[in-house]
């Protein structure tokens, strides 16, 4: 295994549930798309130029942000998948055959994708809802990088990108939300429709085309041109607050109604029973049950339990029990049946270890 193997044994240090909104917001992300002036976009770059691009951006990144270069095109499939599971790279970059890379900041909250559909995708992550702070940090990093790298920019169309949907600011501000109560009460569709009308995009946890498994949703701006960066961030922030409020109300209304409360409590306790007893757990089953444990912890449903799990344990299981993470930490776990068994063992062990500490 290469230099990223160590990532398989620890969740990102910046992760920190439940945050200030009762676990509804998992994380925020700011992404800026940039291209070098005078260069073809990655899709049209000859192989030698693509290699030079990775080296050139990595050299500038080394001066702007302490970290290391991961040559994604040289990784094993499972290692690429590990980077996708941590949301450090997109599925497109993970699947790329041309020279491409990831500049991973030492803080693990800065991740520069090099040679995806644009030359650079500058990303910053943080726990909870903190788009404004992340934008300020991302712009500061962009300014540092621009000292070495001249960006393709047009007075009318702004930062020029390979796809017209990213033109202008090149900014995508996204928030990862956990909305199980809205899904359970059937109000989610109306909420998602309202977001669409505000020109916001709603996607699953792994971006475009991914399923909203466990009711985790990424909400982000669709438009990047015609509004400045602060305006875009303010509109996503405001929309996220409204959705958080809707989820809070849906959770309260479930608790206030006997039949719905029974249903909610049953889901939480079943999740607890399965996760502390199962001997085989698929990735999908774990994500679904873990989602209800988060709700149970946030709403105090698990309070009658003498030994409650901690939020940090739920984060740890959520990240480290993903397939490629398991394989990185346990190289022998190459087939899915083995991983399902290992996933059940680790989940049970970590949840009951919490019980021992309480």
């Amino acid at each position, binding site marked *: 295994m290469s230099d990223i193997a160590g990532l398989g044994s620890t969740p990102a240090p910046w992760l920190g549930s439940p945050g200030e909104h009762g676990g509804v917001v998992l994380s925020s992300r700011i992404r800026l798309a940039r*291209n070098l*002036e005078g*260069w*073809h*976009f990655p*899709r*049209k770059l000859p192989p030698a130029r693509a290699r030079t691009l990775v080296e050139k951006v990595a050299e500038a990144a080394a001066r702007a942000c302490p970290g290391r270069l991961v040559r994604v095109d040289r990784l094993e499939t499972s290692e690429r*998948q590990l980077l*996708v599971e941590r949301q450090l790279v997109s*599925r497109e970059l*993970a*699947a790329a055959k041309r020279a491409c890379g990831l500049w991973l900041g030492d803080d693990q909250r800065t991740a520069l994708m090099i040679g995806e559909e644009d030359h650079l995708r500058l990303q910053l992550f943080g726990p909870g809802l903190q*788009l*404004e702070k992340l*934008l*300020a940090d991302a*712009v500061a990093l962009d*300014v540092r990088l*621009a000292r070495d790298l*001249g*960006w*393709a*920019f*047009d*007075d*009318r*169309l*702004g*930062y*020029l990108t*390979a*796809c*017209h*949907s990213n*033109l*202008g*600011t090149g900014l995508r501000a996204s928030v990862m939300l956990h909305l199980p109560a809205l899904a359970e009460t059937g109000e989610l569709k109306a909420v998602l429709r309202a977001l*669409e009308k505000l*020109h916001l995009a709603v996607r699953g946890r*792994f971006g475009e085309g*991914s*399923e909203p*498994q466990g009711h985790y949703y990424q909400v982000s701006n*669709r*438009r*990047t*041109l*015609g*509004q*400045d*960066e*602060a*305006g875009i*961030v*303010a*509109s996503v*922030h*405001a929309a996220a607050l409204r959705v958080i409020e809707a989820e809070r109300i849906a959770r309260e209304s479930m608790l206030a109604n006997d039949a719905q409360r029974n249903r909610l409590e049953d889901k939480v306790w079943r999740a607890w029973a399965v996760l502390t007893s199962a001997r085989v757990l698929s*990735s*999908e089953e774990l994500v679904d049950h873990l989602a209800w444990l988060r709700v149970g912890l946030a709403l105090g449903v698990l309070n009658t339990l003498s030994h409650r799990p901690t939020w940090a344990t739920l984060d740890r299981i959520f990240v480290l029990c993903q397939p490629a993470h398991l394989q990185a930490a346990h190289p022998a776990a190459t087939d899915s049946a083995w991983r399902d068994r290992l996933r059940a063992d680790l989940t049970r062990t970590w949840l009951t270890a919490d019980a021992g500490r309480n």
Partner: protein
Amino acid sequence: MATTCQRCGTRPATIHVTEVALQGGHAEAHLCNACCQEAGWTPLVPPPPVAELVASPADGEATTPDESADEPSCPNCGLQFSEYQQVNLFGCAHDYTRFAESADELIRRWHGALQHTGRRPGEDAPDAGEARRAELHTELAAAVSGERYEDAARLRDQLRQLDGGT
């Protein structure tokens, strides 16, 4: 069975898209042609008839179809606009000038604008707090005029927090 477009909710869905995720699972979308284009999805070109396959040039030979030989291309990267419509990716920054008319139409449809108003290279960070403040003031005015006093109080608290937490 005929379904309605899940985006506009009015026109019949004529395009059915299934995306398969790398880590398993899939997502489905049922869209009408107009919404499909607006969402930036490009329908897959149906496979060519067998006769055309037989007549196709072998790998490595020039594959530009006859009808596109006359289609203008970018002198810098060689991209033809029909290629962009297939993959939604331009080849270089010049393409926005070379295909300005078609590109502007796409840009206007997607963004509802044709003029960048954000940062320029080298400029410092924008004041996101200021934009948020303006948005909160608008929401506060709407809450007061709608007599939603609980919302108004919450918004006022948020404004105070932005102004220094007093």
